[in-house]
């Protein structure tokens, strides 16, 4: 089979499965009542988004060889090496965007986990439906 067609097909399958994971995680965020499960779904969503960005950064090389890491390994490089590097290295930009996004996600998730822990300590539940009822009762009282 044509290698170009095959690589595009596999990339398409991966992209579509990531979209599927995103849909499932959105279901978890919107429809699960437990706050912890919402947070877990949020991590799945962010990881799917990051993987999507990385897949967009993938590239093919001439002759369908393996693309290389975006790291200059020959120091000092020659002009020919830089040309070759440009033709074979994968896209560094999505990786740079994902790199910081992962750590920030980790920070935000840790914050949300701490917040959920405090909510549990104050109200003894993390079910959003019960929390809403408690809030309504407090407003009536």
């Amino acid at each position: 089979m044509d290698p170009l067609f095959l690589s595009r097909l596999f990339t398409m399958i991966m992209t579509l499965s990531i979209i599927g994971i995103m849909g499932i995680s959105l279901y978890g965020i919107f429809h699960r009542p437990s706050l912890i499960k919402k947070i877990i779904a949020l991590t799945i969503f962010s990881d799917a988004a990051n993987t999507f960005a990385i897949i967009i950064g993938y590239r093919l090389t001439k002759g369908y060889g393996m693309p290389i890491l975006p790291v200059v390994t020959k120091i000092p490089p020659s002009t020919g090496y830089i040309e070759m590097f440009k033709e074979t290295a994968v896209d560094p930009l999505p990786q740079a965007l994902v790199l910081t996004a992962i750590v920030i996600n980790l920070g935000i998730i840790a914050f949300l986990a701490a917040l959920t822990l405090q909510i549990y300590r104050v109200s003894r539940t993390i079910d959003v439906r019960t929390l809403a009822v408690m809030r309504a009762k407090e407003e009536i009282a």
Partner: protein
Amino acid sequence: MSLRHVIAIIAMVLLIVTLSYAITMGAIGPIPLFKVRRVSEFYLTNAFNPFNKTISAMTPEVVTSIVWDYRSLDTLFETAVFYLAIIATAMLYRGVIVRKKTQVGLSPIIKTVTKIVVPSIIVIAVAVALHGHLTPGGGFQGGSIAAVSFALMLVTFSLYTLIRIGASKEKLLALRSLGLLGLIVTSIVVFVMGKFLGIRAFILQNQAKPVSIIGLPFKICNFLISGSCFFFNVSEALAVFMAFGLLFIFISIFEEDVEEALKRVEVVE
């Protein structure tokens, strides 16, 4: 199964089908391509280019050159977002006093294994952080790896042992601020140098630019340090390590201590 449940599932399936259809029909173009995009081509060509030093970052790792040189302002603000999340967590736990108690932790076998594993984790973390400008990795990753060792020790030896050997909340906050200070100093050092010498220079500048002839050296004593990238990575690793350590301490504070603080807040209100 209620009606709302069914509607939610149908909505998700519709979303998946619509997005998948759009991508199959070429909404994000044919991927993968034979060429990288134009802007990435610029980064790949100029990240380490001794023939064109004025626009090169002189960093062999292209991702690091983007993160800490070409788009370092973005990274600085992303760091700000990260630390705001940490500060928000610290605010949630204000007024919590950790009382000294004796806790035994896990069994001696696990403790011994942890004593062997933790130094190696720290070594890997330091290597990843210090080689951030040469190999994949950097400050964020190094700090996160080091934080894993902290979580491991927290579980095996208990929080009180850690506090006894000197990893208190205040100390971690101070060290985290030291890391952030390192980031700030590195980002303005060339600017300040230019002000003293009377030469035009910019904030977050790394190498010399066509309109500004000063910059940080990319090589010191035959060691490639890529100017500001090395210092950014080191301070970021310290700050991330301490920030995650702080988070782990907050999450694992003993239940009674937090509840006592919550009661105190209620009394004040």
